[in-house]
């Protein structure tokens, strides 16, 4: 498995990937806020809500100025996004080297053998994905860009994506400098002693 940058398409920049991950992270936070066990919500509901939430945000992002590099597709319920034409899938897994298929199905023992019979030389990434991990609190703690060789069923590229707080959409003003708070000197500086005719004197004893 290679972990070098040389295999990753140049369209998949860290900034773009981080922006996607920040949306996923935020969607999970939003889903967690709304999770109400008294209505029967459980971890499954939270997961579905978070998924629907981030797919919707990414779809909105894709049609927003400044995110022309992003496209989204939902083919037969399978959400896919593309960064400048490079398709990506998103999934959650404890182990970043675990493919989405491995989460869902058990491959027949014959499959690897059959693949050996028709083996072609070398490994090649034919699918890209973002895999993220969550903690016990359902918050996103880490994410990776994975390059997957579906013929050999191997993850042959793995690179960490920083989980940073990036404003997702319509938030360009964040970069705008906001006015500083207005400050005042203490009003005590405006106090004035009255000029009292024949007023009392003070004497300080030695």
């Amino acid at each position, binding site marked *: 498995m290679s972990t070098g940058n040389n295999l990753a398409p140049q369209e998949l920049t860290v900034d773009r990937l981080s922006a996607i991950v920040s949306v996923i992270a*935020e*969607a999970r*936070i*939003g*889903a967690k*806020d*709304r999770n*109400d066990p008294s209505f029967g919500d459980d971890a499954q509901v939270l997961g579905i809500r978070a998924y629907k*939430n981030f797919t*919707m*945000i990414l779809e*909105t992002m894709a049609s927003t100025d400044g995110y022309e590099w992003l496209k989204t597709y939902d083919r037969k319920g399978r959400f896919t996004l593309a960064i400048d034409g490079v398709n990506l899938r998103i999934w959650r897994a404890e182990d970043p080297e675990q493919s989405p298929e491995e989460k869902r199905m058990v491959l027949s023992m014959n499959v690897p053998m059959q693949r050996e019979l028709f083996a072609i030389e070398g490994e090649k990434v034919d699918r890209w994905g973002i895999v993220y991990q969550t903690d016990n609190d359902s918050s996103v703690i880490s994410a990776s860009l994975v390059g997957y060789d579906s013929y050999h069923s191997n993850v042959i590229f793995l690179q960490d994506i920083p989980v940073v*707080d990036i*404003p*997702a*959409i*319509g*938030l360009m*003003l*964040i970069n705008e400098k*906001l*006015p*500083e*708070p*207005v*400050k*005042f*000197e*203490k*009003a*005590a500086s*405006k*106090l*004035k*002693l*009255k000029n*009292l005719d*024949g*007023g*009392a*004197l*003070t*004497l*300080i*004893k030695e």
Partner: protein
Amino acid sequence: MNTLIDNLGSRLRLARTLRGWSQQELAHQISVSRQFIHQLETGLKYPTECVFEAICESLGVRTNFFKVALVNELTSEQCNFRKRKTTTLSLASRVISFGVIFEELLNYLNTYIDFPDSDISEFSSMISSHSKSETYSRQSIEDVADHFRKEYKLGSDTPIDNLTDLIENLGVFVTSFAGVSDKVDALSFSRKYHVILRNKAKESACRQRFDLAHELGHIILHQGIVTGEGATEAEADYFASSFLFPRKAFVKEFNRCMTPVGSFRWKHILELKIRWKVSQRAIIYRAKSLGLIDSRQYRSANVYLSGSGQAKRELLDDQIPMEEPSLISSSIDILQSEVGINFRKISDIIGMKPDYLAEMIGFEFGASATTENNVFSLPPRQMFNT
């Protein structure tokens, strides 16, 4: 002695309510009957010297406290009182009595010291003259808050760093009353002086600032109007949120607090809280008032705040320092350093024990007490020339 007798009833009642005691409680303290206290307060009877001393001792006042006539006494109708409906009568009387004493202190300080000029009454009169009725719509309150910011050059999109400093610069006195439960948030009145009394029991600077802005709203919007009803309190609340976080800035900056699917970004709301020194609950309320979130989202946000244990004390409350007024303590310091009248002397003139008065107004009494023996007053200069 005659002045003392003349004023005894009203001053006794003032000193008693200031302690927050009923007639029965005072009677118990000095081992007399409740009826006797009632008779003293109504002028039907006079105490013996022994009983009088006991009264002074237990109420924390001096003999000369009873020599001052109560003229043009502050009344509850002149006060803007938050939570008046849930406030007991004795609690209300106690805070109003505090206002009476505070006004007497201001009067005394004002004989030596010129306070900052205040033109807030003119602003208030101008607002009243433009208003066709005694009630204000939300839109008109937004306009008043914007106009107020413009008039005093506060900017339409800038947070107020220290609201207490601003209010004192406007010639409004701010002080705190201690030892009263949080059933009274704050109180204000506009007579010779504009005064705002805050409750020291408040632990959050955001809540204190909101209370101050609320009272400022009363001073601006409700001069000559009896407040305390739901409508006037709601108007003052709306002024507070409009003034602390103007709509133009709010619409711009709150944008980042919501995801496109309508859930809250609490991290950004906390950032707004730190920047504007406004509680998360007040931010959510403002968003609802301006139509940026709907009722369902508003409820959801409040459920989240309550569910995460932030109903009374919110996250990052400890990051926003409490604001302290400076006008009164500085006036007292000036009086001591320039005129030689220390706090003990001031307390004597007001007729209260110094530690009691100091506790009431939140003055740090220790420093001036130590210098008492070093300073004394001489008669006016011309007396030596004759």
